[in-house]
């Protein structure tokens, strides 16, 4: 079984982002970049399937600037066998390559690579759209198992447990299929130094969007990006009695 794992270079989740002073977007110059955390879970899941003898090859693919090779190499250190970078200088967080365009790019790659399974993050932590996996499933005409917290593959049958409002839902999907990962699917491992060294030698193909016949003209115009309304700290109360008194008489919420 061949698994395709799309990943994305995003601002590291620990970084406190800053809105650009001209309100055109987020200032991402000189900030730490990482693999989108949900995508890291996707790579880990693919690697576990390979370790269990259920997958034969893992291909990590990304769309982004030249430097996205760093994230492909990290995926390779975790266990991806080879990588594909679709190189673009268009912004990939806001106002550039949108989920639909990403899905079209990935469809073109899937048509070429014929994977049996695509595992990807449920959303990227920059644009927060939560669309790409569902869109890709639609374009390929495949089944989708979104927000997965458990994945079981046995003799060609694929069962996925999904995190839904109110609890969990288990589906059986026809393959090939798309899985999007939720947080509790697994705990990604840290890449070890020897694996990081080995990753440097794994094959990484760089292609252009035009090679795949996809167009990155945005459909959504970013009119402006602003700071959210801030909430300031209130007061500290000294005791439970004081808290109850304030909630009853000042805030009037109980």
């Amino acid at each position: 079984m061949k698994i395709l794992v799309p990943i994305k270079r995003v601002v590291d989740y620990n970084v406190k982002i800053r809105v650009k002073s001209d309100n055109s977007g987020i200032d991402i110059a000189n900030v730490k970049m990482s693999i989108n955390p949900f995508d890291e879970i996707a790579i880990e899941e693919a690697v576990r399937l390979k370790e269990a003898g259920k997958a034969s090859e893992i291909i990590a693919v990304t769309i982004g600037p030249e430097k996205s090779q760093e994230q492909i190499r990290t995926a390779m250190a975790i266990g991806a066998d080879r990588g594909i970078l679709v190189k673009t200088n268009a912004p990939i967080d806001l106002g550039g390559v949108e989920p639909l365009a990403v899905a079209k790019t990935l469809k073109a790659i899937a048509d070429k690579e014929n994977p049996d399974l695509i595992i990807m993050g449920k959303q990227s932590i920059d644009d927060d759209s939560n669309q790409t996996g569902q869109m890709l499933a639609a374009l390929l005409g495949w089944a989708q198992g979104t927000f997965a917290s458990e994945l079981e593959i046995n003799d060609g049958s694929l069962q996925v447990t999904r995190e839904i409002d109110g609890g969990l839902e288990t589906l059986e999907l026809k393959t090939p299929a798309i899985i999007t990962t939720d947080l509790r699917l697994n705990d990604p491992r840290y890449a070890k130094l020897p694996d990081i060294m080995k990753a440097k030698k794994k094959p990484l193909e760089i292609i252009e969007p035009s090679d795949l016949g996809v167009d990155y003209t945005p459909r959504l115009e970013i009119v402006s990006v602003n700071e959210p309304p801030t909430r300031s700290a209130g007061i500290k109360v000294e005791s439970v009695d004081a808290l109850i008194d304030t909630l009853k008489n000042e805030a009037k919420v109980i």
Partner: protein
Amino acid sequence: MKTLVIAEHDNTELKSATLHAIGAAIKIGGDIDILVAGSNCDIVAQAAAQISGINKVIKADAPPLEHQLAEDIAPIIVDLASNYTHILSAATTFGKNTLPRAAALLDTQQISDIISVESADTFKRPVYAGNAIATVKSSDSIKLITVRTTTFDAADAAGGSASVEDYSAPASSELSKFIKHELSTSERPELTSAKIVVSGGRGVGSEENFAIIEKLADKLGAAIGASRAAVDAGYVPNDYQVGQTGKIVAPDLYIAIGISGAIQHLAGMKDSKVIVAINKDEDAPIFGVADYGLVADLFDAVPELEGKI
């Protein structure tokens, strides 16, 4: 302007999230139709017809639609789409799962999780976990949109008398098959629509200790929430999680107990009207957003609060 709202339901009850999505449709303006797709879902279609201001209910009632799988719902939306300028659903796990599948088939760039309607083609939506707000303008001829339910008022569930029109759905794709649900059963109000939410974090320490959170919640008639840390530690089920990747809540009163206030958690609750934090660490970031903070050991303060309230 004509909007189609995708109803969320379990074949017996229309979910309140749908009323909030209709609230956003009202802001856009024009006629509003509702799609109720399910199996033996006539009671839901009748309830939808009672909602104030609805033009028409379209009912797709067929056994394969019982579990409303995205693979089978999306083609219905696509088939109906040409009659509409806007197609909306709540940004719940149902809406998030289904609408992008329809959007791709319509070659439309969906707008996720809007928090305001600026005009018929311009919307505000949070990005970077709510640390920035983007105003986006769509150039697509049909706009597919998911709606953050906490930021739009619910439409009035009564007072309407829309007609119900039958729609015969195409055969199932049979790409996916429902196996089972494991749903939390609770007498408490639903987390995303509760007036009061009591949430526990890692500081609560164990599944057993969560009983003190439950007691306080029951005294207040509140829903129970949790931080990601508490969910990951197995104290409570995943659907209790409040935060960027869990539920977004905005109750009148949010009580955060033993929650440090990681940015991911704040993204899910900072629009609450009044926030109370109880934490023994006076430097916890949660105090930076709390209207009222109490620096105390939660194992003393919470039972005392529950006893005296």
